[in-house]
C-alpha cells in the first residue's frame, strides 16, 4: 500500500454537504411570482388589471373603514367629528346594538335571556355537530328546545316543562315497544305524549303563578338578528323529519301516498318563498278555527317549515336514489321489514350522502329568513329599514348598517359551509 493513498484518504469528507438552495430562477418566491402571476403576457395583463381593481377597492373602502367614528350619538354629530373627512359612522352600531340584535320591543332588562339561550345553543348543538363528544351531552340537546323557549318567551314554566315531560314519556313508551313493532311503538308513544300534554295543560292552568319567574314576552316583540336565528334554527330542525317523511313518501310504491307527496313538493318548490309568507300574513289565519288567533310568528314558522321541508325532501330523495340497489336488496334478504330496513340500513347511508345538500338548503333558508321583513316583521333588515333608518338621528346611514348585516350573515353562512366540508371529509368511509 503506497503513501499516496493514505494521504488522499485524509481528505475524504465524513459527512455530506447540506444541499445548496436552488437558484432563484427555479425556486423561491420569485419563481412563485413568475409562475403564478406572470406566466404569459395575457396572464400578466390579467394580474395588472386585478391589482388595479384591488387598489380601487381598498383605496375606496380603507379610509372609510379606518377613519370610522364610534362614539357619536347621531349622524349630524358624526359629521361634526369627521369634519368633512371620509369616514364611516359606526356609532350607529354601538348606539343601536341591542335593537339590531334583539329588536326594539324586547324588554331591555331581559336581554340576558336570549344571550344565554344563544350560549346554551352552542352547548346543545356541539354533540350533534361533533361526533367525538360524549354522547351523554345529547341529553342537554333534548332539553334545549324547551329551555330556549322558556328563556326567550318567558311566562310560567309549566308549559315547556309539561311539553318536555310529554316528549320524555312518549319516548320511553316508544323505546319499550320498538323491538316489537315500529309502527305500534310510534303510535303508542304519540298517544302517551298527547295524554301527558292534555293532562299537563290542566295542571299548568291550575298552578299558574301570580308572577312568573321570567317575565312573559309576546312573540310580536321579538326582532333583530335574534329573529333570523330563531326562524332559521326552528324551521331547519322542524323540516328535517318532515323532509325525510316526504322523501320516503315520494319513493313509496303506494300511489296515493306518492301522489300527495309529489303534489306538495312540486307546489311548494314552484312558488317563491315570499308568496308563502303572504299566505302566512294574510291568508293562513282563515284556515284556523275561528277565534283561535294564532300569532304571526307561528304562522311564519309553519310556512317556512313547509318551504324548506319540500327542498330537503328533494335533497334526501337524491340521496336515496344514489344508494346502490344492492343495499335495498340486502336489507330485504336479511328479512327486515320496511321500517327496519329504512331505519337501520337505508336512511343512515342516504342521509350521509345528503349532508352537503341539506347544509346548502339550511344556508339558503337562513339567508331567506330576511324575507320576513317584507311582511313587516322586524328582523335585522326590518329593523334597519324601519326604526333605524327612519329615525331622525340616523336617517342616511346606509352603508354601515348594511355592512354590519352582511358581515353577520357572512360569518354564519360561511361557517356552516366550512363545517359541512369538514364533516364530509370526516364521514368519508370510502377508501381512497
Amino acid at each position, binding site marked *: 500500500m503506497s503513501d499516496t493513498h493514505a494521504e488522499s484518504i485524509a481528505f475524504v469528507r465524513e459527512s455530506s454537504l447540506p444541499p445548496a438552495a436552488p437558484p432563484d430562477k427555479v425556486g423561491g418566491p420569485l419563481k412563485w411570482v413568475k409562475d*403564478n*402571476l406572470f*406566466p404569459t403576457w395575457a*396572464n400578466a395583463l*390579467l*394580474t395588472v388589471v*386585478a*391589482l388595479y*381593481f*384591488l387598489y380601487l377597492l381598498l383605496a375606496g373602502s380603507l379610509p372609510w373603514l379606518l377613519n370610522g367614528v364610534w362614539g357619536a350619538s347621531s349622524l349630524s354629530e358624526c359629521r361634526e367629528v369627521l369634519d368633512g373627512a371620509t369616514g364611516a359612522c359606526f356609532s350607529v352600531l354601538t348606539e343601536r346594538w341591542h335593537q339590531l340584535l334583539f329588536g326594539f320591543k324586547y324588554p331591555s332588562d331581559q336581554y340576558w335571556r336570549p344571550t344565554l339561550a344563544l350560549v346554551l345553543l352552542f352547548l346543545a348543538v356541539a354533540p350533534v355537530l361533533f361526533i367525538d363528544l360524549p354522547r351523554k351531552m345529547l341529553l342537554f340537546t333534548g332539553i334545549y328546545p324547551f329551555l330556549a323557549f322558556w328563556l326567550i318567551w318567558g311566562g310560567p314554566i309549566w308549559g315547556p316543562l309539561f311539553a318536555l315531560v310529554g316528549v320524555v314519556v312518549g319516548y320511553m313508551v316508544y323505546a319499550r315497544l320498538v323491538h316489537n313493532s315500529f309502527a305500534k311503538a310510534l303510535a303508542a308513544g304519540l298517544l302517551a305524549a298527547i295524554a301527558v300534554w292534555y293532562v299537563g295543560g290542566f295542571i299548568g292552568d291550575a298552578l299558574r303563578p301570580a308572577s312568573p319567574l321570567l317575565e312573559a314576552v309576546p312573540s310580536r316583540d321579538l326582532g333583530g338578528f335574534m329573529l333570523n336565528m330563531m326562524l332559521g334554527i326552528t324551521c331547519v330542525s322542524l323540516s328535517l323529519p318532515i323532509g325525510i317523511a316526504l322523501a320516503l313518501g315520494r319513493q313509496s*310504491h*303506494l*300511489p*296515493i*301516498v306518492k301522489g*300527495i307527496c309529489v303534489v306538495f313538493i*312540486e*307546489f311548494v*318548490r*314552484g*312558488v*317563491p*318563498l*315570499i*308568496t308563502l309568507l*303572504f*299566505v302566512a300574513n*294574510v*291568508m293562513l*289565519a*282563515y*284556515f*284556523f*278555527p*275561528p277565534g283561535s288567533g294564532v300569532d304571526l310568528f307561528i304562522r311564519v314558522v309553519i310556512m317556512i317549515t313547509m318551504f324548506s321541508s319540500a327542498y330537503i325532501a328533494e335533497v334526501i330523495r337524491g340521496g336515496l336514489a344514489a344508494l346502490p340497489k344492492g343495499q335495498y336488496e340486502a336489507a330485504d334478504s336479511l*328479512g327486515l*321489514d320496511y321500517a327496519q330496513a329504512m331505519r337501520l340500513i337505508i336512511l343512515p347511508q342516504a342521509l350521509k350522502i345528503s349532508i352537503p345538500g341539506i347544509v346548502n338548503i339550511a*344556508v339558503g333558508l337562513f*339567508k*331567506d329568513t*330576511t*324575507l320576513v*321583513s*317584507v311582511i313587516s316583521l322586524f328582523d335585522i*333588515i326590518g329593523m334597519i*329599514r324601519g326604526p333605524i333608518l327612519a329615525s331622525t338621528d340616523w336617517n*342616511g346611514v*346606509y*352603508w354601515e348598517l*348594511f355592512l354590519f*348585516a*352582511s358581515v353577520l*350573515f*357572512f360569518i354564519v*353562512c*360561511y361557517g356552516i*359551509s366550512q363545517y359541512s366540508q369538514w364533516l364530509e371529509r370526516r364521514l368519508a368511509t370510502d377508501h381512497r
Partner: protein
Amino acid sequence: MTTISDPPQESFRPSMLLSDTRYRSITFQVIALALLLTAIWYLGSNLAANLRAAGLNISFQFLGNPAGYDINQTLIPYTSQSTNLQAAWVGIINTLLVSFLACITATIFGVIAGVLRLSNNWLVRKLMAGYVEIFRNIPVLIWILIIYTIMTAAMPAPSAFRGDDPASSMMLGSFAFTNRGVYIPGPVMGPGSFIVVATFVASVIGVFAYRRYATKLLYDTGRLLPMLWPSVAILLVPTIVMFFILGMPIGLDYPALKGFNFQGGIQIGAPLIALWFALSIYTGAFIAENVRAGIQAVSRGQTEAAAALGLRSGRIMNLVVLPQALRVIIPPLISNYLNITKNSSLAILVGYADITATLGGITLNQTGRAIECVVLLMLFYLVISLGISMVMNVYNNATKLKER
C-alpha cells in the same frame, strides 16, 4: 326466523289488513286518503266559517274593476283607469322582463367568474373565489337593497348635470346615470327602417345557413372553410349597405336635460336596474360554481386524448371539453334561472312593479281580496316553474348519455 310474504291461501281475516303485505298497502293508502280528506274538510270548514264571520266571499270580480293606481315602468299601455287584470299583466311582463335580463347577465358573470376561478393566475383565482364566497353567503335581499341605495343615494340628481360647469356629466355624451334611473339613447325608426331590420334578420339566418353548409362540407369532403370572417361579413355588410342606401332611416334619440329631468331616449328606472344587477351578480356567483364544477367534471384524459389526436387547444375546448361540460352545467343553470324568476318577486322591496308588487301588493291591499290575489300569484309562478322544469326534462332526455 323468516318472514313469509306469500302465505298459503286462507280465508280473509280483518287482522290481515295490518299483518299481510298483500292488504297492508291498501290499509295505509285508505288511512292516508282519509287523513287528507279530513284535513281538507277541516281547513275548508274553517275557511267557510271565517269568511262568513267576516262577511266575505270568494269572487274574482275585482279583476275587472279599475285599478286606480299608477305604475311608473310599463311595457304595455296602462293608466290608473285600467283594470286590475291589466295591472296584473303589466306585472307579469315586468317580471318576465327583469328575469330575462338577469338570466342573460348572470350567465355572463357566472361563466367569466367560473372560468377565471380555474385560471392558473393565483391573484385572479383568489379574487374570483372571494367574489363567489361573498355573494353566495349574503342574502340576495341585502344585495338588492345595497345596489338600490347606490342607485338612489349615491348617484347625482338630474340637476347636477345642469350649468356650464356641471358637477356630473353624461358618459360619452349619451348615457346619464342619475338617481332617478339611467337614461340611454333610444332608436328612432324612420320610414324604410323596416327594410333594414328585415335585412338584419335575414343576415342572421344567413350566418346560420353558412355555418351549416361549412360543417356539412367538412364532414362530406374534409374541406375546411373559414368561419369567423365570413360570418361577421354576412352579419354586418348587407345591413350596413342597406342602411346607407335607404338614407340612414334609423337614428338615435339622445337623452337631454330639459326642465327638471332628462327627456328623450330610454329611461331605465332605478328599481329595475337595482333588481337586475343584484339578481345577476348574486346568481352569477352560483352559476360560477356550476361552471367550475362542470369543467372540472370533464376528466383530463379527454383533453389529453384530443391533444394526442392533434387538435389545437381552441378545437379541444369547442369539440371535446365544452360539449361534455355543458351536459353537467346546463341542468343546474336552468334551475338557477328558475331561482332568478322566483327571486325577482323581491321587486316589492324596491318598488319595481312586478307581479308580486301589483297583484300581490297594491291590488291586494286596495281590494282586500287576499285569498284570490295570493292564489292567482302562486298560480302564475307555478306555471312558470313547471314550464321551465318541462324544458329541463326535455333537455336532459336529449343529452342523456346513450349507453349501449
